[in-house]
């Protein structure tokens, strides 16, 4: 399956600053999933977005799915050192394989 393009590839922030990563697809997506992988860890599911224009929040994390269902974003408000890791947006899921891109690697300076 075609992977979703994600930017930036790397982001370094000071603790307390906000962070956003963006995903774009050339084709309409039925859904998009977000995963986080801590350094040395395994991917962990964060959320799935399905509906056009959908916005979901998990504490300081805000996930958006574009109106055209071709892009998505993850915004973290007031980053903490525990937010460090690589964030992936992926198409697929359910019984379909997940296709990982390079993700966005976030580092947070305390």
């Amino acid at each position: 399956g075609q992977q979703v393009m994600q930017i930036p590839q790397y982001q370094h922030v000071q603790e307390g600053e906000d962070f956003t990563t963006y995903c774009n697809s050339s084709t309409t997506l039925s859904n998009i999933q977000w995963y986080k992988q801590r350094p040395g860890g395994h991917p962990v599911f964060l959320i799935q977005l399905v509906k056009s224009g959908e916005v979901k929040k998990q504490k300081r994390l805000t996930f958006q799915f574009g109106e055209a269902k071709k892009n998505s974003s993850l915004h973290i408000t007031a980053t903490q050192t525990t937010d460090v890791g690589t964030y992936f947006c992926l198409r697929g899921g359910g019984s379909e394989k997940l296709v990982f891109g390079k993700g966005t690697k976030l580092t947070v300076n305390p």
Partner: protein
Amino acid sequence: EPEVTQTPSHQVTQMGQEVILRCVPISNHLYFYWYRQILGQKVEFLVSFYNNEISEKSEIFDDQFSVERPDGSNFTLKIRSTKLEDSAMYFCASIRGRRDTEAFFGQGTRLTVV
């Protein structure tokens, strides 16, 4: 909370040797996957398994690789003759059903081929 377990956590093997990586998916899950991640690189799909057969495999999953679900609980990945470039973290993942979304990943097995 249910989890996918993988053993061993770290395996060191000599080039040319066979290795078997073991996974115990969550008990009521039906779809199983192996992924690998070479150090510093992205997570790559290897194979998916459903209903006791391979449903999809990547170009990486050549004749050196095989998967089995021998006893209804374990899900194994065998590499027949390891090469140096097989050194990577191998993740097992499972999904409950066709309509479910969340993939649960194990902690991984770090394979080092020397």
